[in-house]
Every structure is written in structure tokens, then in C-alpha cells.
């Protein structure tokens, strides 16, 4: 049983108990609800009257249980009636659309133009108080709610393949509606039902409280509260009991609704907020190491870095080096860990993921070296966007839709530098011009949705380079773009490299053509490991790992005559092969590949490969 389903047990049990108790009212040894006992009015709890006696000396416990029957009967009755009518309207409207939709769902929605209590009040006063007028009023009131919910669900289901298939086979629409669509819209219908019962109880008790609902002497919780109000000073508990019963029952139904919702729709439970927002130290800030940076010292030196979600290693012992002015491409299929490696450098890993080992030594602007993997949130925040910045894949999602482009660039600068407004504004416009956005003064005042996809990515890049970063991490910055725009953005990156010769860059991509164009060195990643690394020209000319070779062969214009797809799929992190992770898909695999993990081999001074048979790979 899933945790979400287990959470249903509590409210479901409470509701079952309440329903059973009120249903069993005739069988229970309760006092007569109408038997008055004026001499003992307002008497406290006693053996015969567990909860005491009311203003006419009637037994409070008996009235509470019978009152619950009245309330629940009205609420459940109207919720069911409204569900049947509303579901029918919603199904018809959602399936047939057009005029039918207008006559069913839209017509029912007119009811929503009136405040609910007002409508109930109108109906009840026209028809007189009593149980049946109440049920009618509540049925009218809640029909549009069901109609809406079922309508929305029907529309979703109706577009699905199996419904289209049935239509194509000539099944009668009503049969499709009842047999196929109705079962599929049941979950939202159930959620709505528990919500409506709770809400109907609120209105029923409210009307009874006003004296417009259940007619005395029939007991009802609303009436009991009404009566208790006038005796508040003498017997406050008379007010407390029905209040507790009413609020408790409604709460149980509301809880059931909430938990049904999360049980039926797992997407609605978003994983626990955001850890980075919680002010607590993740790890002690590692002291900056001695400033002993030589001239040719690397900008970033990742050593044996691992990233895991719980026990599952997604990135395993990755070692990479980026020198100033150098562009390192991280290449691999989806799930190879290339993006996670990039995110780990900026402390932006999703909450569930953690760096579990290794280090990432970064040479700061002031010459000190610091381990990025050991920094706490605040420590890495000072570097982020200033010395190390990121360009994300989908600029449309990565830019805040309700802030102007200029403001989004400006806040990146302001996060690290105190500038006056005019200087800041000039700097923003300069940046936008620098990344090739035409008419930057005006575009600075535009919202993201007013820009084209290419311009949004340019704006994203302007944000990233706003503080002249020493290390730029670009996570598939061209993937979401049209081919022509891709080329323009790549040119922009090339231009940035020329303009800032000291900036190092990590370029995450799955596109080998892009690698050839932009990168100096390339690291090929597979299933969380770096399988080969070296200068781009050498690796492309002579790969030393079968996976690299296969990747190159699978590029349409890769220079190879044959176009070969790699058989099989990337192994799941739950079922990693024992030996070489690529062995199951490898044309060169032999017995030892499946048994032991290949050590890193060095075919040349600045190349590595993780293959036993690298010498035989052409």
C-alpha cells in the first residue's frame, strides 16, 4: 500500500464510525429525543444522561446522534443527487461539445453566478423550510461543481487513443460514455463528492441555525447550536458538543477529500519544498586552501566526484579539468550524468541528490583555491552568478515570466555589486547589446514572452555573463532552439570566448556537431562515468572507447560512411552492469568486460579512456 493510500485510513475510519453510529441510532439504547424533563433542564452529565440535558431537559447525547442522522442524510443525499445530475451533464457536455456543452455545462454554471448560501436561502424560502427543500436546494447548488469537474476530466479522456479507437469502431456514444469514460472520470468525481458532502453540511447546518432548515423538534446540529446560544451563560457545554460534532464531521470529510486527491493523483504531492530555503548549515564551509596557484594551474579540477540519490549513484567518480580560456564539452545521452555534474558545480542539484564523494577544486579570482563540493549554501551562493554562472537549456522556463528582462539581468549584477541605478541601467543595456539583442534599451523593458526563443536565450546568456564569470557552465543551451537559431547562439558563444580569453567554459550537450564547433576538449560520459576524455580533434579523429566511436558513427554527417545506431539502451541506475557499464551494448566486449571494471588507461599524455581494449578500437 502506498503511503498516500495509507493516509486514507484515518479519515475513512472516522467517517465510517460516524456513519455507523448515526445509522445505528434506532438500535442504540438512547433516550427519547423528544422526552422533556423540565425540572432537570440544563442538568450536567449523569449516569442516565452522559452529556447532560438541554433547555427542555432532553438528553443531549441522543439528540446529538439523531441530529447527525438528519445532517448526514441531507448532505449525502444531495451530494449523490447532484453527482448523478452533474456527472451526466458533464459527460454529455465534455463528450459532444458544441451546442450540447452550452445547454449542459455552461447552463449549469449560471448557478455559480450566485453566492451559494444566497441561492440555498432563496430556494428554501420559496419552498418553505424542511428536509426535502433543503436537499433540493443543495442539489441545485452543487450540480455545476460536478458538471465542471466531470466535464474537464471527460475532455481529457476523450482525446485518448482508446476512446478514439472505440469511436472509430462505431460504438454507440452512450456506450462509450458509460463503459469507458465514466470509470476514468471516477477519481475526480470521488474527490468532488467528499468535498461536496462537507460543504453541504456547512450550508445545511447554517440554514438550520437560521431556522430555515430542519424543522424542530427534529434534532439537528445547526438547531442545537441555535438553541444553545440563548443559554450560553447557563450551560456553555450545550454549545460545545454540537459544535464539536459538526466541525469534526466536516473536518473528517475534508481530510478524506485532501488525501483522496493525493492518493489518486500522485503528481499533486510535490517533494518536500526546498531544502536550500531552510536556514541551516549543510556542511561546514571548507577553508580556502593556500594560494599557491601556478601560472598554468587549472581553473577547475574535479576529482572522483560522485552524486547520488539515497543509495543510487547517478554520477560515479568523475574527474575533469578545465583550464582558463578552455572549453570543455560534456557529451552523452540523456541520463549519462552530464547535467548533474554541471549542477553539482553550482550547488543547484535537486533536493534529493547529494554529492557523496570527491572534490571540485576551483581557483578563485583572488587566487585562493576552494572545494566547491564542500561549500554550504551561503558559501556557494557568493560564487554563483559572480565567478561561476550557468546558462540553462529552456530559456522560456528559466526566465521569470512576470519580471522585465532588464530587471532580471540587473538583479544578477546587484546580487554581487552595489551600483547606482543609472550605472546599473547602462550596464544592463550594454550587456543586452553585447549578446546581440537589437534595440536593447526597449527590449530591457520587455517581458520574456514578448521575445523570440533565440532572443530569450541571448537574454539568458546576458544574465550569465553579467558579472564577467571565470567559469561559464552552459547546459544544452541550444537544444530547445531551431537549427538556424542554434547556429547563431553558437556563434555568440564563440564570440564570448574571443572577448573574454580567460573564461573557462563547460558546455553540456548531446550533439557532437556542436562539440566540434565550440569545444577544445571533450569528455564523453556514459551511465554516470567519464569513459573518454581528451582534445576534440584527436578524439574525433581516433576515438579510444567503443562508445565514443559508436557515437561518432551515429552522427548523420559525422564524416563516417556508415550510419550506425547503438543497440540497446542506457542501463538504469537500479541495474548497473557489474563490469564495464557499456559492455552489454559494446561490439568489442569480451568476457573480462562483464566481470571487472576497466581501469583508466592513458593512450596519450592528455587523453584518458576507460576500456580494456582501447588499442583495438578504431
Amino acid at each position: 500500500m502506498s503511503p498516500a493510500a495509507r493516509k486514507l485510513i484515518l479519515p475513512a475510519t472516522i467517517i465510517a464510525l460516524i456513519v455507523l453510529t448515526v445509522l445505528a441510532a434506532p438500535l442504540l439504547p438512547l433516550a427519547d429525543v423528544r422526552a422533556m424533563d423540565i425540572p432537570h433542564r440544563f442538568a450536567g452529565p449523569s449516569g442516565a444522561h452522559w452529556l447532560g440535558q438541554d433547555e427542555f431537559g432532553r438528553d443531549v447525547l441522543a439528540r446529538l446522534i439523531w441530529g447527525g442522522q438528519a445532517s448526514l442524510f441531507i448532505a449525502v443525499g444531495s451530494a449523490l443527487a447532484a453527482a448523478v445530475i452533474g456527472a451526466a451533464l458533464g459527460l454529455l457536455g465534455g463528450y459532444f461539445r458544441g451546442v450540447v456543452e452550452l445547454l449542459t455545462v455552461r447552463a449549469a454554471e449560471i448557478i455559480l453566478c450566485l453566492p451559494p448560501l444566497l441561492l440555498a436561502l432563496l430556494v428554501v424560502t420559496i419552498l418553505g423550510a424542511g428536509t426535502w427543500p433543503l436537499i433540493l436546494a443543495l442539489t441545485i447548488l452543487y450540480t455545476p461543481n460536478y458538471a465542471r469537474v466531470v466535464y474537464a476530466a471527460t475532455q481529457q479522456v476523450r482525446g485518448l487513443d482508446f476512446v478514439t479507437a472505440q469511436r472509430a469502431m462505431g460504438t454507440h456514444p452512450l456506450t462509450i460514455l458509460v463503459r469507458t469514460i465514466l470509470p476514468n472520470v471516477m477519481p475526480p468525481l470521488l474527490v468532488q463528492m467528499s468535498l461536496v458532502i462537507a460543504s453541504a453540511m456547512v450550508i445545511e447546518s447554517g440554514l438550520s441555525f437560521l431556522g430555515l432548515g430542519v424543522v424542530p423538534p427534529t434534532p439537528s446540529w445547526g438547531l442545537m447550536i441555535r438553541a444553545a446560544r440563548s443559554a450560553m451563560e447557563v450551560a456553555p457545554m450545550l454549545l460545545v458538543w454540537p459544535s464539536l460534532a459538526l466541525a469534526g464531521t466536516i473536518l473528517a470529510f475534508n481530510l478524506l477529500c485532501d488525501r483522496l486527491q493525493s492518493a489518486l493523483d500522485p503528481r499533486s504531492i510535490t517533494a518536500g519544498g526546498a531544502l536550500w530555503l531552510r536556514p541551516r548549515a549543510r556542511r561546514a564551509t571548507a577553508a580556502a586552501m593556500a594560494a599557491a596557484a601556478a601560472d598554468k594551474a587549472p581553473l577547475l579540477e574535479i576529482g572522483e566526484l560522485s552524486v547520488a540519490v539515497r543509495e543510487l549513484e547517478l554520477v560515479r567518480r568523475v574527474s575533469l579539468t578545465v583550464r582558463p580560456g578552455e572549453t570543455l564539452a560534456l557529451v552523452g545521452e540523456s541520463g549519462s550524468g552530464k547535467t548533474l555534474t554541471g549542477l553539482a558545480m553550482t550547488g543547484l542539484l535537486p533536493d534529493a541528490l547529494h554529492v557523496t564523494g570527491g572534490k571540485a577544486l576551483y581557483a578563485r579570482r583572488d587566487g585562493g583555491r576552494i572545494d566547491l563540493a564542500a561549500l554550504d549554501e551561503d558559501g556557494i551562493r557568493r560564487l554563483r552568478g559572480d565567478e561561476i554562472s550557468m546558462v540553462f537549456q529552456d530559456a522560456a522556463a528559466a526566465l521569470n515570466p512576470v519580471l522585465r528582462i532588464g530587471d532580471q539581468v540587473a538583479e544578477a549584477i546587484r546580487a554581487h555589486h552595489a551600483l547606482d541605478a543609472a550605472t546599473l541601467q547602462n550596464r544592463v543595456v550594454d550587456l543586452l547589446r553585447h549578446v546581440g539583442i537589437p534595440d536593447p534599451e526597449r527590449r530591457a523593458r520587455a517581458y520574456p514572452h514578448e521575445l523570440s526563443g533565440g532572443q530569450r536565450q541571448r537574454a539568458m546568456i546576458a544574465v550569465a555573463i553579467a558579472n564577467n564569470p571565470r567559469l561559464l557552465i552552459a547546459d544544452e543551451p541550444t537544444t530547445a532552439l531551431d537549427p538556424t537559431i542554434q547556429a547563431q547562439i553558437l556563434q555568440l558563444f564563440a564570440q564570448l570566448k574571443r572577448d573574454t580569453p580567460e573564461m573557462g567554459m563547460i558546455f553540456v550537450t548531446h550533439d557532437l556537431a556542436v562539440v566540434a564547433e565550440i569545444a577544445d576538449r571533450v569528455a564523453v560520459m556514459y551511465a554516470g562515468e567519464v569513459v573518454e576524455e581528451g582534445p576534440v580533434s584527436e578524439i574525433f579523429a581516433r576515438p579510444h572507447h567503443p562508445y565514443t566511436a559508436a557515437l561518432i558513427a551515429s552522427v548523420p554527417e559525422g564524416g563516417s560512411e556508415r550510419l550506425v545506431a547503438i543497440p540497446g539502451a542506457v542501463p538504469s541506475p537500479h541495474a548497473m552492469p557489474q563490469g564495464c557499464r557499456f559492455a552489454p551494448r559494446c561490439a568489442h566486449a569480451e568476457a573480462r568486460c562483464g566481470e571487472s571494471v576497466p581501469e583508466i588507461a592513458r593512450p596519450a599524455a592528455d587523453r584518458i579512456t576507460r576500456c580494456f581494449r582501447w588499442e583495438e578500437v578504431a
Partner: protein
Amino acid sequence: MLRYIALRSLVALFLVWVVVTIVFLLLHLIPGDPAELLLSQGSIAADPQAVAALREKMGLNAPLWQQYLSHMAGVLSGDLGASFRDGAPVVDQIALRLPRTFEVILGAALIATGLGVPLGTWAAIRADGKADAVISFFASAALSTPVFVVGSVVILLFAQQLRWLPAGGFVPFSEDPVEHLKLLLLPAGTVGLALLAVITRMSRASVLEVLQRDYVRTARAKGLRRGTILRRHVVRNALIPVLTVLGLEMGTLIGGTVLVEFVFNWPGLSGYLVSAVDARDYPEVVGIVMTISILFVFLNLVVDVINALLDPRISLETS
């Protein structure tokens, strides 16, 4: 943008017309003669001649469509007719009582947003933690307790037991501002508690949703401080659906404060409606229901427009 507002206004006007017509028909087609009702006292039947004379005077003998047309003409010129009961213009009563109902709703909205947004945000940040469990439980409990229960318990507690505040009643602001506000506090707080629960839950869900968005990661990548990210990127975007819900809830409350006005003896519009419905006073009922539904529809319109202003994408999508 203007096109969007114009379009939404047209829809709103149409809805108001539909509601006014439905209420008019509902009250005229149901059995029960208001003239007879007015003249009869208890079980003593009214004099048939007097009833006929009164029907003539009230225009009830004209065909329904004529009554409808003259009614609509009156509505368009701002005349809602005179009360059957005392002959006073209905508009005057509405103008007198509507602000009082507004006071309660605005007070409640202030309490609810002022506390609900921070509480909901806090619960979202601590999602699945202890603070979240406590906040979420209280929100559910507050949402599940009908206003008249809260009202009654609040009176029991603050007026009867602690004697901090008066149990109910009304004093015009111009007569005694302090007493007026003291009397307002309990009804506004009672309505505010339910609204607070709605706003808290909505804020929590909305903040949780926004926290998963890419642009929040971008904001972190810029190296912005926690507070800045929360304020500029998270809460600002999360507020859009919260405001929508607040607007809708306030619309519902315009006609939904009946119980609170009853519990606290607050002479607002809703209480007036209950007595009007009770007396079958057509002009009063139609006038009040129309006022409420116009306000309701208008408020929804305002919410949509504010949403469009907050989220520049909306007006583009619909036009």
C-alpha cells in the same frame, strides 16, 4: 489588454442580465400572492377587495412581460422600486447597508491575506515538516468549522467569559469610531478565520508549485539571497492564483455573510435580504440579489484584470 478587458466586461454584463432575469422569474412564477400575504395577519384571511386594490397598485395585475419590461427599465435608470413593506426606495436601504457588509468582508480579507500568505509560504518552505503539519491541520480545522459555530464560540469566549469585546450590535462610525471598530472586530475576525484557512492552503500549494519552476533555479544561479528569491521570484508568482481565490471568495462573501450578520446582530445587506425573502418583498429581494450578483460578477472581472496585469501572459493567450 484593452480588448481583453472589453471582452470580459461584455461577458460580465451578459451574466448580470441572466441572473436578474432568473431571479425575477423565480419570484414571480412561484405560488403565493404577496398582496394577500401583506394584508393577512396570522390566520385571518385578508379582505378580497383590499387585496385586489393592492394588487392593482403594485402592478401585479399586468402581464408578466410588462412587469419584466418595466422592471428592467427601472433597473437601467437606477430605480429598484419601493419596498412593499414600508414604501421606502429599495436603493436607499441597499446604499445604507452595503457598506456595512463591505466593512466586514474587507476586514476579513485584510486579516486573511496579512496572515495567510506568510503562513502558507512558511508551511511550503517547511513542507512535510512539523510547522507544516501544524499549520495545515489548523487550516483544515478552520475551514471545516462553519462561521456560525466560530461566531458563537468566539462570543462565548471573548464576550461572555473574558468580557474583552461586546457580543454584537452596531454603532455608526460617525457616532463612536472606537466602539464601531470594537463591534466590527469579532464579525470580521470570524469571517477572516475561514478566509485565512483558504488563503493559507492556497498560498502553500502555490508556493510549492512555484518552487519547482526553472526560473527559481535561475534566480539561485544568479547568487541572489534567499529573501530576495522568495520575495521577487517565489511569492510574487505564487500570489497570482492566491489573489484569484481571494477575489472569488470575497464575491461569495458578499451574499454569504448572512450567518455572521445574524450571529453578531450586524445590520448589513445579507440580514436585510433574509427578512425581505421572509416577507416576500419582491422589489427588495430582486434589488438585493441583483446588487449582490452585479458585485459578484464585477469582482470576478476585477480579479481577471488584476491577474492579467500581474501576469503579462494572460491577456495574450485569451485574445
